[in-house]
């Protein structure tokens, strides 16, 4: 298999937009091409993530649409849908296309538009990522899934609501340093703890927002990447799944798919958790970050809450997590999130992240989780 590098990245500002998801993707993709210093004609395929386009925009067939709006109508395109992990799934398959020698330059991206519909509707559409007959029937929501994880983690490890709130405070603090973040405002522990309850024990500020946005990156073979300015190498890209039904998950305080995908990624890259300098992980809810830091092997099981409370995951801490602000503050346009996390890690490894730069970062990790914890992707990146 050939080595693969990311040679260009681009994201829109995250927040509310009056543009379609195809426009949001195309804008990010044009930025990524400019960053890669390549003409669009070099792109040989598009791997695309979009989740609820069928619901919020009444739009299927979104990958050729996205390519057309970009101005690249002829290349093969495929849309991936693994709930919130969609564009990270797209990325993994695109890496395989380049590594296999099928193509030399491939575009990966994703976009989502949800703020054009009321919250009750987006809450319902996101719940479609849970089983229709067994879970949607009950009125289970996406926050509800992670509330069950939170309660189990609290019961097993003594994790507190204040420790969860510390994740939100930290990611908002990081978000202030990211001009593309949806929220660029610091919050206090009290703000989180006193915010309205969404799905006990999760409160409004434990939850990431609904977000419109797009992200894109350009992947290249080693031969092409060698001629680019700042290639960042893909050291590993791994995926894993878990049972779809909450009832079939044996221990709700853990996300086995994270543990499996991380083990595979570390093995592929020949790296260990202690080699990782900077992490962008899936903090759709504060508890999700705590459980992910444990599942990725960054902290012992049961100590993820303590790590957040002690500042070990803050910029300047032992292992900075979500310097971009994470899904919590940067925002979570679900189809774009996996690609956007990779854009941040590439920016960090190029040492171009400005005030939120993790000094001397050489190895970075991205972790993206789909829906009810049934899908997880983990990728590792490195400088030359």
């Amino acid at each position: 298999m050939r080595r693969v590098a990311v040679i260009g990245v681009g994201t829109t500002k995250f927040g509310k937009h009056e543009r379609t998801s195809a426009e949001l993707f195309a804008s990010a993709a044009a930025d990524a091409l400019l960053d890669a210093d390549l003409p669009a004609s070099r792109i040989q395929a598009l791997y695309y993530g979009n989740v609820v386009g069928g619901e919020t925009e009444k739009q299927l067939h979104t990958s050729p649409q996205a390519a057309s709006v970009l101005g690249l109508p002829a290349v093969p395109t495929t849309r991936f849908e693994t709930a919130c992990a969609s564009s990270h799934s797209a990325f993994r398959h695109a890496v395989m296309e380049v590594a296999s020698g099928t193509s030399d330059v491939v575009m990966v991206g994703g976009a989502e538009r949800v703020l054009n519909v009321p919250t009750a509707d987006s809450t319902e559409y996101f719940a479609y990522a849970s089983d229709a007959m067994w879970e949607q029937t009950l009125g289970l929501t996406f926050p509800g899934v992670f509330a069950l994880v939170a309660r189990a983690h609290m019961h097993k490890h003594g994790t507190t609501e204040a420790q969860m709130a510390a994740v939100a405070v930290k990611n908002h603090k990081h978000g202030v340093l990211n001009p593309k973040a949806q929220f660029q405002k610091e919050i206090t522990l009290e703000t989180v703890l006193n915010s309205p309850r969404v799905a006990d024990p999760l409160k409004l500020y434990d939850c990431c927002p609904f977000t419109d946005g797009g992200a894109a990156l350009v992947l290249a073979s080693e031969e092409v990447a060698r001629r680019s300015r700042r290639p960042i190498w893909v050291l590993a890209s791994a995926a894993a799944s878990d049972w779809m039904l909450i009832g079939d998950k044996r221990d709700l305080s853990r996300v086995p798919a994270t543990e499996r995908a991380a083990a595979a990624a570390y093995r592929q890259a020949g790296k260990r958790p202690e080699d990782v300098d900077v992490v962008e992980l899936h903090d759709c809810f504060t508890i999700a970050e705590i459980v992910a830091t444990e599942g990725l092997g960054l902290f012992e099981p049961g100590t993820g809450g303590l790590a957040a409370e002690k500042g070990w995951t803050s910029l300047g801490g032992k292992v900075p997590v979500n310097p971009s602000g994470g899904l919590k503050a940067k925002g979570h346009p679900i189809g774009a999130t996996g690609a956007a996390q990779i854009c941040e890690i590439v920016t960090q490894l190029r040492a171009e992240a400005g005030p939120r730069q993790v000094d001397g970062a050489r190895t970075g990790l991205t972790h993206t989780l789909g829906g009810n914890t049934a899908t997880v992707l983990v990728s590792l990146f490195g400088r030359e």
Partner: protein
Amino acid sequence: MSEPSITQHAFFEQARDGRLIGIKCGGCGALAIPPRELCPDCGRREWSPVPLSGDGEIASFTVIRIAPRGHAGDAPYAIAAVRLTEGVSLLGRVVDIPFDDLAVGRKVRFRPLRILDRTAIAFGPV
């Protein structure tokens, strides 16, 4: 052996009448909630239906306060993951137990519930 031993539809028809049905693997004895084609433990395709007691205890729970559009009229409502005495788990609504009395380890018993004109799993006090 191409017909499943119990379909999802049949499970909910039984559940509507108050009976919980699991499936047991003829190869290794593993127990599961239908529908499932292959045994994840031994790979065989030899399920047969077995009745479940419906008794269990709460493994985790939440109270949903912001609900999807279709369920907004019901909110707030409790949902729990319940581990049945036989070892398999099910997610269900919790009814007739005050929110403040919900706890991990609390014993509950299955009962059917109609939600939006469909049969759903629920649990109430023992």
